[in-house]
């Protein structure tokens, strides 16, 4: 394979996609094990599970769109919408379990007033917990995270499809690059974050640098692989 302007463009697309994924993870309200016991705000599972769930749905919808058109904007938008629907469905059903199953009101312990609804938070936070459920600000933040994650994943998929024209290989590679960036970003937030209002969100620049370098190295290797026959 010869390096030309197109190859460089594809590498840049993969890097931008990786950065979207890395930054997107910071928007998703990940609560981890404490949230599973309704003792922390966010969805009660790990970053990788959430990112993989929404990212894979995004890839599916992007692949679906890619089978009818190669307009990059349509493919990326389709992936972003798919991921947003998936993460929103997860958060809505999670909130049902917290509100009607566990019996706790959604509340954030990181801010005194919800930045979007202006509702006071501390009176609703149960003693001994750091919030519970998915309040409005986390929900909006999570949707933005789904947008970025889905757009990033489908951008990587789009770039790879143009190189090797093999949906299986491109899809699996997109998942591989997606997982590496999502895990690096989740190390940056040490596993849990509430959304863009969380103080940990200020660490984004570090994940930005790490994902930039990681996606660049993996992207250079990935564009060299041909799709066989």
């Amino acid at each position: 394979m010869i390096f030309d302007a197109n190859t460089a463009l594809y590498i840049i697309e993969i890097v931008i996609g990786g950065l979207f994924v890395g930054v997107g993870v910071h928007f998703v309200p990940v609560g981890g094990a404490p949230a599973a016991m309704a003792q922390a705000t966010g969805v009660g599972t790990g970053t990788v599970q959430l990112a993989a769930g929404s990212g894979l749905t995004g890839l599916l919808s992007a692949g679906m769109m890619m089978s009818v058109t190669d307009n990059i904007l349509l493919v990326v938008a389709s992936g972003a919408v798919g991921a947003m629907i998936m993460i929103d469905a997860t958060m809505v059903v999670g909130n049902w379990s917290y509100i009607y199953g566990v019996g706790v009101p959604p509340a954030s312990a990181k801010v005194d007033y919800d930045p979007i609804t202006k509702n006071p938070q501390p009176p609703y936070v149960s003693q001994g917990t750091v919030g519970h459920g998915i309040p409005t600000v986390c929900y909006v933040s999570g949707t933005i995270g789904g947008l970025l994650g889905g757009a990033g994943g489908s951008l990587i998929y789009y770039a790879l499809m143009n190189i090797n024209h093999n949906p299986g290989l491109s899809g699996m590679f997109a998942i591989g690059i997606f997982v590496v960036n999502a895990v690096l970003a989740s190390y940056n937030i040490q596993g849990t974050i509430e959304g863009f209002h969380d103080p940990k969100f200020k660490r984004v620049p570090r994940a930005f640098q790490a994902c930039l370098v990681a996606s660049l190295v993996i992207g250079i290797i990935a564009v060299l692989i041909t799709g066989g026959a």
Partner: protein
Amino acid sequence: MSVAAGGGEAKLDKKKLMIYGIGGGIVGIYLAGILNMAMDTNYFSFLAGLGVIAVIVMGSEAVRMVCAYGIGTGVPSIGMMATGMGLVAAMFGLSIGGIAGPIIGLVVAVAFGYFIGAMANKIIKMNIPVMEESLTMLAAAGAITLIGLSVLVAGRIDYELIMGSVIDTGYIAVLFIAGSLAILHPFNANLGPDETQDRTLVHTISTGALAMIAGGIASIAIIGSAGILTILIAAVVWLWAFRWYFQLVKRDSAGVVGTGLLPKGEM
């Protein structure tokens, strides 16, 4: 397989595990590929699966090393990252290397792993001393696992054949998840203050055998009855490893007693 015999606190050196894991994996893959080609059959594919079990044991040891520091994101994240890095390296190696593919994939994976470990420490500032080393081991384990399982399904070390029989059919998704789980599950299940190395690693042999069974089922559609041989051998390995694991669980636990069901009146 180099896991110390049960009983006592036999601590296995990680260097030894690396030599046996990577060596066993590469030897298994090449024996499977070359014997299959030389005899023009597919019945030696199971050797790649045995190599995969050896390298998964090494990956599990790397998970043990790094997760002992508490990475905050749960054990599954690092197992998924291992196969994520390994997948790109494995396919790169197979696509450019021909018969040398597994070696090239291993080298690229080692470079990826070291590099990403260094970034986790230097840029994200995780400050885990073994980060570089364990991510190097994990990426190598992920790459050899995926190459090995692909050779197990396809029967040859041949990129075109693997593309057609593993990637295009979608079996790669099954191998990806089965390989990740085999690497990450044992420590996730055994962690805690009473975790012992031999119990975790023996558990890894059984999860590796399950990944081999998954590969064997996928390979029935590709190489026919040779896949059934793979499943049978993997089932024997699983049974042996799981019985051994159960002995170690009994050794490490305060007591294993059958309590029976609750009496009818108290339900």
